[in-house]
């Protein structure tokens, strides 16, 4: 029996009204097995990032359901503007989701160490020293822990972002074009590190990419167009 870690059904997300109305997700359904590497490809504006944001609890679908590790994320009991719901999603994100952005999105006022441990700190937990050491050595960040993001290269910043996403040992890693701002060499290294990480720590990776080479490395690839998903036979 397949161990489905994340399941999204009939997701719909519409932005704007009237003439500016855009349907980002059109009755889209998605699922992923635990420990798998799923690549999401598609043209620009197809709704890939919107899907990832909803799966990561950063946005709310207009309709549909999302379940992560058996816990129903959406629909919410009430509106997203409800303070309680927002708190619930925030706690969920920092415990269960590791998000990696294309633009790294490190917090500029915090050091590398602080960025990496931020999800744990926000949760009131202390980082496991051994695990922290393992992560930082894996991503070759041990000698840059007191540096600030502005003092790092793009590749280094993305490594920090990945390390951050793994630090809380989340069950699900969502990566939105993590190699989009990197050169080829760095891109390969990052993907390799991601794959190593998820295998070592038994995590599930859903990754958005335009790069067919990266998509080819995934266990499964899906294609988005006009807010709908279709499988790509590998």
């Amino acid at each position, binding site marked *: 029996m397949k161990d489905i870690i994340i399941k999204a059904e009939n997701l719909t997300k519409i932005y704007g009204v009237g003439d500016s109305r855009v349907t980002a997700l059109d009755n889209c359904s998605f699922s992923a097995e635990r420990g798998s590497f799923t690549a999401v490809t598609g043209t620009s504006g197809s709704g890939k990032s919107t899907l990832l944001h909803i799966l990561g609890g*950063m946005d709310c679908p207009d309709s549909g359901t999302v379940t992560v590790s058996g816990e129903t994320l959406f629909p919410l009991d009430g509106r997203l*503007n409800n303070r309680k719901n927002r708190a619930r999603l925030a706690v969920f994100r920092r415990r269960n989701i590791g998000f990696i952005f294309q633009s790294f999105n490190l917090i500029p006022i915090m050091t590398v*160490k602080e960025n990496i441990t931020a999800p744990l700190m926000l949760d009131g937990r*202390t980082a496991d020293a051994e695990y922290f050491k393992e992560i930082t050595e894996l991503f070759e960040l041990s000698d840059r822990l007191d540096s600030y993001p502005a003092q790092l290269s793009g590749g280094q910043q993305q490594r920090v972002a990945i390390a951050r996403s793994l630090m809380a040992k989340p069950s699900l890693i969502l990566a939105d074009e993590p190699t989009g701002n990197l050169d080829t060499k760095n891109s390969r290294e990052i993907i390799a590190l991601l794959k190593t990480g998820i295998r070592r720590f038994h995590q599930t990776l859903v990754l958005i990419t335009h790069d067919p080479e990266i998509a080819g490395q995934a266990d499964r690839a899906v294609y988005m167009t006009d807010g709908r998903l279709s499988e790509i036979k590998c």
Partner: protein
Amino acid sequence: MKDMLLLALRYIKVQRKHSIFIIISVMLSVALTMFSISVVFTYRETKRLAAIEQTGSYHILMTGLDEEKAGLLSHNAAFSQTELFKMNTFPDPSERQYIDEYGNDNFYTYNYLLSGTDIDIVSDYDALRREISVAGQAFSSGSTELLPKTLLTEGHMPENASQIAISEDSGYKVGDKVKLSKAKMVYDNYRSYSVPTETEEKIYTVCGLLTMREAYANYFYVSEEDSFPFTGFFASTYGIRARFADMDAHFTSTFIDICEKSGVLVARNVGWDYNSPEFNYAFNDELITAEAAGKEARAMLIEISAALYVVIMLILAGGRMIIDCEFELTAEKKRRHMGLLMSIGADDRQLVAVTTFEGIILGLIAVPLGLILGYLIIIAVCMIVSSDSELMSKLCLDSIKPVISIWYLVIASITGIGWVFFSAYGTAVRIKKVNPVEAVNGYRKSKKLPFPKKPYKHRDDPKKFLGSINYSTMHMEKKRFVSCTASVTLSMFLFVMLSYSPVLYENYLDIVYEELHGYNSDFTIIGEMSGYDYYELKDRLTESGYFDDYDINPFWIYYDSVKGTVTAEDSKEYRFKSEYMGSRSAEINISGHYLTDMPLALIYEKDWGFANGSIISAQPKAYNGISAEGMPELQFRVVIPDDDPEDRSDRGYIGICMTSEMIDEYERELRESCPDYMEKAGERFIYLQVRNTDEFDKAKKFIETILPEGAAMHDLKSDINGYDYMFRFIRLMAAAVVIVFALIAVSNIFNITVSGISESRQSYGLLRAVGMTDSQLEKTAAVQTFLPIIYASVITLILTAAAVIIIAVITVGSPDIKQAMAFTEPHKALIRVIIASAAAFAVAALAAYFPLMRIEKSTVSDSVRFEV
């Protein structure tokens, strides 16, 4: 450049909030500058109008001129507007009675000019006493019409200075010429009767004849060496009211020069010497000061200008800080845009032009609004002051009209435009130094970034995680943090001190009132007078019926002319009403006009109020003869009562108190030992208590008519009203300025807070993405918002405490802690600091609420989808 101008307009539109804050800041700075300048000149103009209303629009009033001399002066080019008028000047009648050693009534006769007439009192004193009172009143009111017409039996009363009405039994008839010498009668102690002294021969034409019985006679000596009684009434004189054409620094000496060159002699005082053809003049000091002329006026103008300059500099400093802060906040965003422009070929000049144009455009919008606001504020203040009917009645004005000059508008406008231009230009120059590569890539690789040198020491503690965020934020935005803290501090401190200043003035008034009341008098006459002056004044006061003898208290005679040295261990020179430190017996040497070997009382009082002092010594130890000043000197040995010899902080005052009887006795002695004594003038304080309070106003008017030349009269009511008026004015001005400062401060704090939250939106979004909840976000934002306010409050408290201490030391003198505390009331300053801090916190909280709510209500994905 046209494109840069359009780009500047686009920035103004896009950064609407920043633009509005800059406009508001410039507007308020311009308004306050204009208001400050205008209020000073409105006050001066009001004083000028009040002076004109009360005393006339002339600078100098000359009286007692004959027609020829008056005409000479009135056509002089130095007087721009001259009014020549006919007047009857009547120098005060002087008749004094004293009781000699034999108990006889005797009289002094002085230059007694009634309508130009020299009057002597005939020997039948009792019969004439009634007439003296009548005549005294008539003479003081200055009108010959009040004298009975039956006095004149033939001819008419004199109409000019060369005519005389003479007693009918003198042997002369109307039309005759008579050569007479006018004499001043002085009592000769040796002979024990009055003898004539100075004389001046003059030819008079007899114009009328008078009855002997009802008339007052002068004793005139004719060249035949016989004296015979006659009465003369001289005609009226002329006066000039003139305005000086040129109120330069030397206008008074210019006036004297003019008069001398015109052949018109100038005397300080007609006074006693009616023999010389001199006349009275008086400067309209109030108007001269109000029109900023004369030494005192210039000194006052310098003081006001200095104070105004300080106020304007503070306004500009506050405004500049806010504007700088605002441009700094937008600089970060602009930096990347400038880099992008640079990457596509914009040069330095064009880059600087964008932000500079932005500043100029905002200034051009804000300045007219500020001028209008300033004008409205001054109008509102004038309306409020004008609605105080009591104040307007005192000023004799219907209303106060604001004074607006084109120069105020120009100064305020230049200030506003200049300030925003320099802020914008400075920011533009800083921005254009951006590295285009870094700007385009959205990050900096410079090593000179303001990172904290040491990491946050609690960075491994999850409970202190939010502290870590704030620690880093403060370091990285140090300049902004310091600038914001400084501007909030300046606003709060100015608010505190301006609202506190009326408290200090009110406390000063309390001291003044206590001193005024301490003497328990309704009026105080202060001035330099000789002994003659004083006794004559005293007699007139008692004869008026408004004052009894015991109501007239000539305490502190020759105030400030006493010097003393303490020759015991604690050697300290002190003056009359001086401090005495410690408590022990001491040898005190005192010299002064009044001292002889007669007993007198030394009053010792711990506090200022001498009226309640206790007599501590009555016998001088030795008489040291005549001092270097030509006055008798006495040495006293006094024992100062002290209940705590160990307390070295005791301070008291020693004063010399003399009763009226003592004064009479001493002056008699002094006349024998110091012949010039009665002639020599000394400063006197005479305290008067009205017998019947219902007659207060009448008594005041009476005193004004008999006041000796050079003396001034203060009445308690006027003094208190004057102080009250000044206090109300200060309070009103302070309130107006405080309100404007408060508006600036509120706008400043609001802007800083909103901008701070908005600028942190990026960080907050990223933190939300990794799981920060709303409450954690609010705690972080609260620290960032309130930290500058906390620092500003602490610094304001320290600055206020320092200011209060400085004020206490300066105003109170040697630090008597209790006295200083009573005067400065530091708890009131503290209350104001607390109010300012509480208000700042409230405004900051309100300002933070809206942008924070907007951030919280936005989705996390929207927060992370932003320009890096």
